[in-house]
């Protein structure tokens, strides 16, 4: 009677892994559109996506990218990102993104390992003390749309820098003259069918934006 049956968190997690219900793969397509044309794309997305009534959901995030390097290793062991919403009060998001899968070339989207973890604001200090190094940071401002389980973001990336004039305000500078467009789905292992749906959706955004599977290895040594 003293020790009853209670499953430990690790056991429940292994059961969840076993049942394949943990969304740990990200399917991703990316593209970009010039600032002058972005309104057209937003109109098109308003017509195509689910959250039409409420209008597009604005977001303004600050993202910091960390790397944990094991001793005597040139390549980082672990790449982590911490994302904080500047516009709403929400938990910090800790994100792990793995290497892209070298799969079949005909696969319609990029597939990579991904873990999204909500956490407390102590995460930045925690990671730094853990031995992680800040590689770079930026702010990302734009709109988010949904279509079924697909997430579409149209956002502009700004550099961090300068001295903030008011608390909570940061001086930022746009990194380019265009908006980044991302179409992504988080799904458990083995749901490759989603790639086809994403391709079909991407077709509907042509010729405004060309969403593609970006091969990061070809971009050189960008962390």
């Amino acid at each position: 009677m003293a020790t009853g049956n209670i499953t430990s968190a690790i056991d429940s997690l292994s059961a969840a892994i076993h049942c394949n219900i943990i969304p740990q793969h990200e399917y991703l397509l990316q593209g970009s559109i010039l600032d002058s044309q972005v309104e057209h794309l937003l109109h098109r997305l308003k017509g195509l996506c689910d959250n039409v009534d409420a209008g597009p959901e604005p977001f303004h995030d600050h993202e910091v990218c960390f790397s944990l390097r094991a001793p005597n290793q040139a390549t980082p062991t672990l790449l982590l990102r911490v994302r904080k919403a500047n516009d709403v009060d929400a938990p910090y998001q800790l994100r792990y993104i793995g290497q892209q899968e070298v799969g079949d070339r005909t696969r319609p989207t990029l597939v990579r390992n991904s873990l999204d973890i909500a956490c407390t604001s102590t995460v930045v200090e925690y990671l730094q003390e853990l031995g992680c190094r800040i590689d770079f940071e930026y702010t990302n401002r734009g709109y988010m749309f949904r279509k079924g389980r697909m997430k579409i973001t149209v956002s502009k990336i700004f550099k961090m820098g300068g001295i903030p004039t008011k608390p909570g305000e940061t001086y930022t500078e746009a990194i380019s003259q265009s908006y980044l467009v991302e179409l992504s789905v988080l799904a458990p292992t083995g749901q490759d069918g989603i790639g086809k749906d994403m391709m079909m959706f991407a077709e509907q955004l042509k010729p405004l934006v060309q969403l593609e599977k970006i091969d990061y290895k070809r971009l050189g040594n960008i962390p």
Partner: protein
Amino acid sequence: MGVTILQPFPNLENKTGPSIIDFLSKRVIALGAQQVGHFLVDCETYTSVPQMSVQPKVVHVLHNSEHPASVFSILETGTKQIALVADLLFDLLILKMTPAYTSKKQTKIESKGPRFELGDFVIKLGIVSMSQTFKGVMVEVEYRPCLIPSMCWDLIREFMQGFMGSHVTNIIPPYFTTPSMMAPNQNKQNDIYQPIDTVQQYLEHFSNYRKLSNPPIMGMRN
């Protein structure tokens, strides 16, 4: 969610874990408490590999069945302590840190046992074991309507003394009076109580149990 006080119950007569739990359960039931399920708090500790830093850093990862969707992690750098509360998937992330942080499986420690409710109180009687070896018994009492420890300590103390006798001191546990490592200017007993405070009390006691080289009695019977 209210204030929780954690108290080790001394094993003076060299009894087995289950028999102490039986003894305390009977007393709690006599007071009118009802058993509502079981509870489990576990802790696993990872240490940085020597090449990572001069002073080893220690990462504790704890789970509490009272907060089943969260993982609590406490990082000790030697000079300070940083607590992080995250979603359950954090466990998968920890596994990815293995080249830099490794765990000793034999130090995995847990407290597990029946959970009782009596009006505004929740009582948990836990057997502490480290890799199947019995280490002791810990009693957790939570008073749910209050969030400030100093305001309900006397009430909790009186209640605890009611079934544990003089093993409960009249002074609030040191955890609440020593300046917190995380916020040195704050006194924990007048602060709003948070789930991480329960976890930190467990970690303190778990660390003490780990230091005990000799377990108080022979192996635990399951």
